């Protein structure tokens, strides 16, 4: 299958186009891909028909139907024949207990990898790093069915020159291997700028940062970067805010606040990664868009207003994940005006909706795409 407009969009620089210059190529790709999903995914077509949405006619961004993330938990939605799916990704299911399931063909997998890599390189720099991964060695799994956790870790290794893990297991609990960590990190400032410490947010804080704080053990790693992703729910319940995490990482590792980078993404749109920039904002890449909707009415909200985040991207063609309404609350903070210099929309994520029942989801779930 070829997607000419999508390929053209993918060739653009990640954050250099102003919003007005990006809109045309983005919508061309989105129209192309939406029609593909409509023609090849029967449940998605029924979903659109129920909403009187016909992608044969041109539509604008606000008109494209969105799938709530909950829908990906019930069925493996595909826009390609099942035999073309070579990998199935499952989310961690921390909120609902049921994982989302995503089927990737090789085209989508390659595109997602490319987008992920470009967003990460833009933030950390185009060079190789010594990765210190705060997880078990087994988390870098190599199976046909991978978890989002192992997939994420492996995804980052494209910019690694060395990878070491620093956690072990003790009675079923994760435990920091402090001796190993000291060997890896106590090499002096001449190597620290080549160091990236990576971990899932909760694991990093609970199993590394907090124990080190309690021990009074600190490191001096000027220029090193801390990358973390996911797992805020547990930390929020323990009153650990993003600001506190940054402060404590800086205290423990001796890094600058702008070098503590929070990666935001979700399984339903793998490859779409939104790192915090030097100003603490998140940027939508050229192959993505974001809208904010009122949690009750689902009407679009203007810049500055908090609501449910809807993410739109044409990069996945094996399943209809191009327009997803998440359960995350956030707001668009600006367009083309972030002090970091990146162009396009800028947004922040503020947390999860407490009662994440998207209006309309109930009837969608009940009918289960029935004709």
């Amino acid at each position, binding site marked *: 299958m070829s997607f000419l407009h999508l390929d053209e969009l993918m060739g653009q620089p990640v954050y250099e186009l102003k919003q007005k210059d990006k809109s045309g190529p983005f919508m061309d790709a989105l129209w192309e891909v939406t029609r593909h999903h409509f023609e090849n995914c029967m449940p998605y077509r029924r979903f659109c028909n129920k909403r009187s949405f016909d992608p044969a006619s041109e539509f604008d961004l606000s008109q494209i139907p969105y799938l709530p993330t909950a829908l990906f938990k019930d069925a493996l939605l595909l826009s390609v024949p099942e035999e073309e799916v070579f990998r199935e990704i499952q989310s961690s299911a921390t909120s609902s207990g049921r994982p989302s399931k995503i089927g990737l063909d*090789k085209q989508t997998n*390659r595109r997602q*990898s*490319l987008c992920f*890599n*470009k967003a990460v*390189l833009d933030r950390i720099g*185009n*060079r*190789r790093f010594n990765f210190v991964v705060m997880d078990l060695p087994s988390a*870098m799994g*190599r199976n046909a069915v991978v978890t989002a956790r192992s997939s994420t870790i*492996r*995804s980052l*290794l*494209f*910019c*690694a*020159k060395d990878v070491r893990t620093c956690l072990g297991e003790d009675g079923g609990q994760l435990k920091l291997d402090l001796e190993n960590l000291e060997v890896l990190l106590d090499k002096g400032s001449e190597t620290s700028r080549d160091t990236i410490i990576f971990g899932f947010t909760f694991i990093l804080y609970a199993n590394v940062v907090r124990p080190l704080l309690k021990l009074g053990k600190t490191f001096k790693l000027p220029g090193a970067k801390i990358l973390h992703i996911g797992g805020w729910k547990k930390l929020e319940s323990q009153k650990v805010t993003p600001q506190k995490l940054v402060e404590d990482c800086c205290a423990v590792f001796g890094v600058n606040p702008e070098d503590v980078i929070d990666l935001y993404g979700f399984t339903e749109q793998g490859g779409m990664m939104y790192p915090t920039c030097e100003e603490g904002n998140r940027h939508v890449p050229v192959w993505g868009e974001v809208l904010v909707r009122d949690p009750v009415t689902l009407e679009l909200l203007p810049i500055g207003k908090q609501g449910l985040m809807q993410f739109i991207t044409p990069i996945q063609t094996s399943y209809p994940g191009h327009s997803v309404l998440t359960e995350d609350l956030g707001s668009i903070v600006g367009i083309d005006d972030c002090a970091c210099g990146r162009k396009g929309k800028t947004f922040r994520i503020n947390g999860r909706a407490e009662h994440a029942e998207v209006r309309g989801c109930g009837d969608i779930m009940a009918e289960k795409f029935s004709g």
Partner: protein
Amino acid sequence: MDNVRETCLKVMSEIMEVEPSSIHDDSNPDNLPEWDSLSHVQLVLGLEKTFAIEITPEEGIEQFENFRKIIEFIEKRLNV
């Protein structure tokens, strides 16, 4: 130029644990199952070491689409 090709073949077959005869100019992650994200990183690092060159992550993404492009990239970098 044959030396570059042969050397790349040797490095790739060792890293991916396949016979050199199973690697062709159009071999890529889609048609060579052993070529996954982990072995790709190992391949880039292995070629860096073997040829004493630096390959940036961006080059590793964009210039390493298939075996033929890898050879072309190395040859260009070595000016052969």
